[in-house]
């Protein structure tokens, strides 16, 4: 294995062409990289383009309506440029994804065992018997009780938390190098969230897979991730190691996000909010996309789109006024 990142995304752009001729820029020049065994958190509010980014990596965007450009380099392949057959061989095998909705992501017509063994047989071949044994082993690894019985159950018999465990087992079926988890805990209640996060941490330690964790929950990020990328309106606005980002946020949007988390150790009468609305991505503003909501805005902000500038070797921010410390004192 070569040194350097496992996956490197450069200048990824995705735009959707609607039936009415409107073009929506869902993702604009996203640059990301994840090293082997690292966990990257991709954070942002609904509609900021995080899920679209993950679908672009998996090659799951509809070809008719989505225009994708840029480069996604994964272990020697450019995922945007490889033939469909190659991509299908990578998906489920070296690239795997966990979806947000465990309740609807399992096929109701098959037992959970069928669905996992199918993936194993598709990518690894071998006998049905061996695949079944591996499936039982996988179900045990995600802590499903009595897996040799559960393997023959249909999805409607399982609770949401159990189904998400099955989805994780399915994603891990072929020991992927990169696991994309698209809000894996959003549809679950809080106690289950903690269990699923524990499970993911445990599996990551065991398997050494790199993880891209997509979430809008900064608490989840703080618990599991090594590095964080914050997305706003289709762009990455800040990228830093997790401790650094929480201690020293350098983009006003990140500051706003951190300020809007309820905390038990401080007395406040109300939570901080970020004023205003996300810009319409059919017609994004010319300058900084956060300018209309930014407390530190100045004239230069609205003139041209700011670049993602490195403030330190590991910390990048798309704010021309960074570092922000001097603004608040």
């Amino acid at each position, binding site marked *: 294995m070569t040194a350097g990142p496992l996956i490197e995304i450069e200048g990824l752009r995705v735009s959707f062409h609607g039936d009415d001729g409107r073009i929506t820029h869902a993702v604009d020049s996203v640059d990301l990289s994840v090293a082997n065994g690292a966990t990257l958190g991709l954070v942002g509010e609904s509609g900021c383009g995080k899920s679209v980014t993950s679908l672009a990596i*998996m090659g*799951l965007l509809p070809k*008719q309506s989505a225009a994708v450009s840029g480069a996604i380099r994964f272990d020697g392949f450019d995922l945007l440029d490889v033939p469909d*057959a190659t*991509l*299908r*061989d*990578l*998906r*489920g*095998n070296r690239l*795997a*994804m966990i*979806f947000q*909705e465990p309740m*609807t*992501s*399992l*096929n*109701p*017509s*098959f*037992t959970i065992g069928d669905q996992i063994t*199918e*993936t194993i047989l*598709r*990518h690894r071949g071998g006998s049905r018997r061996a695949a079944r044994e591996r499936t039982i082993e996988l179900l045990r690894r995600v802590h499903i009780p009595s897996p040799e*019985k559960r393997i*023959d*159950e*249909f999805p*409607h*018999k399982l609770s949401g938390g159990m189904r998400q465990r099955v*989805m994780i087992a*399915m994603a891990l079926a072929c020991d992927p190098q990169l696991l994309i988890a698209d809000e894996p805990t959003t549809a679950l209640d809080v106690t289950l969230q903690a269990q699923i996060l524990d499970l993911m941490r445990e599996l990551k330690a065991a398997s050494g897979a790199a993880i891209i964790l997509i979430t809008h929950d900064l608490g989840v990020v703080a618990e599991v991730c090594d590095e964080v990328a914050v997305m706003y309106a289709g762009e990455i606005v800040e990228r830093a190691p997790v401790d650094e980002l929480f201690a020293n946020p350098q983009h006003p949007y990140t500051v706003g996000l951190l300020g809007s988390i309820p905390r038990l150790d401080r007395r406040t009468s109300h939570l901080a909010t970020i004023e205003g609305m996300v810009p319409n991505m059919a017609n994004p503003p010319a300058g900084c996309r956060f300018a209309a909501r930014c407390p530190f805005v100045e004239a230069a902000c609205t003139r041209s789109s700011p670049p993602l500038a490195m403030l330190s070797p590991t910390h990048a921010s798309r704010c021309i006024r960074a570092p922000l410390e001097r603004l608040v004192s």
Partner: protein
Amino acid sequence: MTDTAFPTSASLAAAETLESPARRAWRRLIRRKGAVLGLAVIALFILLAVFAPLIVPYDPIATSWSLVRKAPSAQHWFGTDELGRDVLARVVYGARASLLAGVISVGIALAIGVPLGLVAGYRGGFIDALISRITDAMLACPFLILAIALAAFLGPSLGNAMIAIGVSATPIFIRLTRGQVMSVKVEDYVEAARAMGNPRWRIALVHILPNILPALLVQATLSIAAAIIAEAALSFLGLGQQPPAPSWGSMLNAAQRFLTSAPWMAIWPGLAIFLVVLSFNLVGDGLRDALDPKAR
């Protein structure tokens, strides 16, 4: 351990959790009286059709000048027709033509309609528009008129009647399959199947098709009833089963001239058509209720 006949809660739970959707649908189907009655009648007619020579002692096409239009009697339970043939024998042998026509023509409709509907619904775009417009054009013609026109074009025979009925019933299956595929293909589990690296054909056949089978099964059952009526109508018009081979439709045709003098010639084949069609409809309705995902 006590030796009671009561199932323990553990064994009940095990039976419950391991039940496949098909088995549960069957359990729910046989709870319905109408559906069970329909199944029983259909089973009876299938047995009659298969074992016809063992059941009736008379040849259905053997004529007898001494037995023309005799009323039902101990020898001929259902009476005899205008050529002295035993009506019971002809009704029993006629079940072969009717059931075969019903099943084979719906088989043809499924064989053509489901693949076309799958392609149209899954691929979308131009191919969908093309298939859908042709379907719309065919649906603009009433089912029976289309079947009569096709049968007349192909020439009168039972085989051609089946083809004509099958082709006429195809657009319903194209449209149903297309609609079902379009609603299933956006489900998360189809997306998940794509994320697992499945090729397109496999997603369509293995991940989508099983989830639309219930709707197809219900429609197929109801279509068999319609196809049996269509076969009777074509045979009545002389476009289906050719004389002297027995068919319920052609028996009705022969009977219409003697409705007042020999009503039994019309009553028995008419009753057979009524019973079989009613039964298929009862089973179809029962299946629809049993397979309804909302009634879990």
